[in-house]
């Protein structure tokens, strides 16, 4: 009977908190959106599923051994942990948590050894997170794969569209200002590093957002990734009203001249040019843009198609599976159910809206100073969200003028947006570090 009681005590139904239950419902909602509504399913299916796993009570799948020992260890273990972390003795869970968070590396290792000796081990999802995200490798490998899938032809045919990709990053920076403002007004409590990580949602680029928040605000990573991918899926709903409001019927009808042919050698040299500029001026963007350029060079150089194929298929797929589950591990109730999450969701959509508007307005500005007119509808594609945003531009173009195929023209700002947000990420990391964030 004792055994049965043990099983019941260790079962989830007995231990589940309201928070965990709510998060399971939220994750089932994410799965529904991904599967039924086709919301970025490649990421949201693993994220949603990982979120359910992370909230299974008693399984501790998302916890390191030390935290598992804190929650499930007996008095002796707690006393040893406290001692390892430099406390006089175990006082309260709260003080132990604080001590663990602020522990120097040597103390943290002593605590890990105590947990190991007491028979605790890292949860599966925690291991995935550590290997895939904390090391930074998964977002970088995905970015390499994205590079290997990206055709810079339309951008090279019309380099001016890079300005659209630059302008759309205003969403990022405006959001940082917003987040800092909310903190100044006392509504939220975002540090400058948090604000920077939240802003990157406006870059509309999943791997960049995950990479930046893993560096600057790991605790907010779950909410930031979910916001980024959800809003990317919502691009066809968010962007059109803004685009219509900021353009006249006349402007939306503008037909653009056909793009010139771009030679193979230009395409080969371009990633190297970009890499060298990054090397010269933005070393903190080197991991992201370096891997991106590497993927693109493998694609275009034509002599390593084996590697390019693998980067676009097996490797990016494997990485996506583990990245998704790892992001899901950050949907554990005690971290996700926080007023900050609401703030992040609110700021994220503002970021998208401002980015879209800035892209469109920039296109109109370009038209004032240049004789080759661009259709301002392609400005919104500067937020990235490849290729969804470009398709939205195309759709609105066709509505205004049935012979106006903007897709190829919009791909230029669209891939420029990827570069733009990676550049913004590098700037942000540099500045936040300089501020001691």
């Amino acid at each position, binding site marked *: 009977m004792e055994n049965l009681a043990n099983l019941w005590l260790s079962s989830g139904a007995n231990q589940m908190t309201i928070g965990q239950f709510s998060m399971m419902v939220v994750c089932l909602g994410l799965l529904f959106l991904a599967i039924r509504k086709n919301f970025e399913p490649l990421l949201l299916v693993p994220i949603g599923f990982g979120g359910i796993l992370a909230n299974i009570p008693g399984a501790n799948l998302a916890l390191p051994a030390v935290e598992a020992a804190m929650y499930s260890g007996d008095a002796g273990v707690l006393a040893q942990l406290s001692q390892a972390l430099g406390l006089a003795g175990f006082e309260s869970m709260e003080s132990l948590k604080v001590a663990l968070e602020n522990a120097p590396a040597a103390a943290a290792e002593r605590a890990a050894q105590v947990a190991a000796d007491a028979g605790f081990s890292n949860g599966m999802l925690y291991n995935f997170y550590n290997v895939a995200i904390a090391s930074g490798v998964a977002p970088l490998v995905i970015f390499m794969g994205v590079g290997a899938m990206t055709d810079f032809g339309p951008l*090279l045919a019309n*380099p*001016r569209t*890079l*300005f659209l*990709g*630059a302008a759309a*990053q*205003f969403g*990022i*920076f*405006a959001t*940082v*200002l917003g*987040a*800092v*403002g909310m903190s*100044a007004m006392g509504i939220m409590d975002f540090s*400058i590093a948090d*604000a*920077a990580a939240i802003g990157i949602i406006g870059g509309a680029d999943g791997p960049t957002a995950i990479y930046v928040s893993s560096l600057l605000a790991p605790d907010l990573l779950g909410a930031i990734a979910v916001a980024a991918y959800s809003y990317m899926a919502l691009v066809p709903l968010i962007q059109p009203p803004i685009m219509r409001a900021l353009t006249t019927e006349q402007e939306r009808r503008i037909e653009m001249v056909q793009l010139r*042919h*771009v*030679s*193979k*050698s*230009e395409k080969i*040299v*371009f990633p190297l*040019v*970009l890499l060298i*500029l990054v090397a010269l*001026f*933005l070393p903190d963007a080197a991991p992201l843009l370096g891997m991106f350029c590497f993927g693109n060079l493998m694609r275009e150089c034509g002599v390593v198609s084996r590697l390019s194929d693998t980067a676009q298929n097996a490797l990016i797929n494997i990485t996506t599976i583990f990245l998704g589950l790892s992001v899901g591990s950050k949907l554990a109730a005690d971290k996700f159910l926080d007023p900050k999450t609401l703030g992040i969701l609110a700021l994220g959509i503002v970021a998208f809206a401002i980015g879209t508007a800035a892209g469109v307005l920039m296109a109109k500005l370009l038209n004032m100073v240049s004789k080759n007119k661009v259709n301002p509808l392609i400005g919104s594609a500067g937020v990235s969200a490849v290729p969804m945003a470009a398709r939205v531009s195309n759709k609105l173009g066709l509505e205004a003028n049935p012979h106006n195929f903007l897709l190829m023209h919009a791909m230029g700002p669209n891939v*420029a947006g990827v*570069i*733009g947000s990676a*550049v*913004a990420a590098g*700037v*942000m990391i540099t*500045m*936040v570090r300089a*501020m001691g964030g």
Partner: protein
Amino acid sequence: MQQGLDITLFGMGIVFTFLLLLVICTTVMSRVMTRFFPEAEPAAAPSPASAGQSTVGNARLRKIIEEAIKQHRNRPK
């Protein structure tokens, strides 16, 4: 707050400056490549031989092949 303003102003400035540099370098690079390494001739189509005759039949064949590939991949080997 000051920090937020700093990040916004300098950040936006640097993004624009960087992309401006990229526009300039790209344009120069394109000119150089087009002038000094002109392409032999943009090949009209990747597979001219098979393109002429029966594109419809080919399309159907391709579809069958793709399905075969898909089945081949999905089979529980």
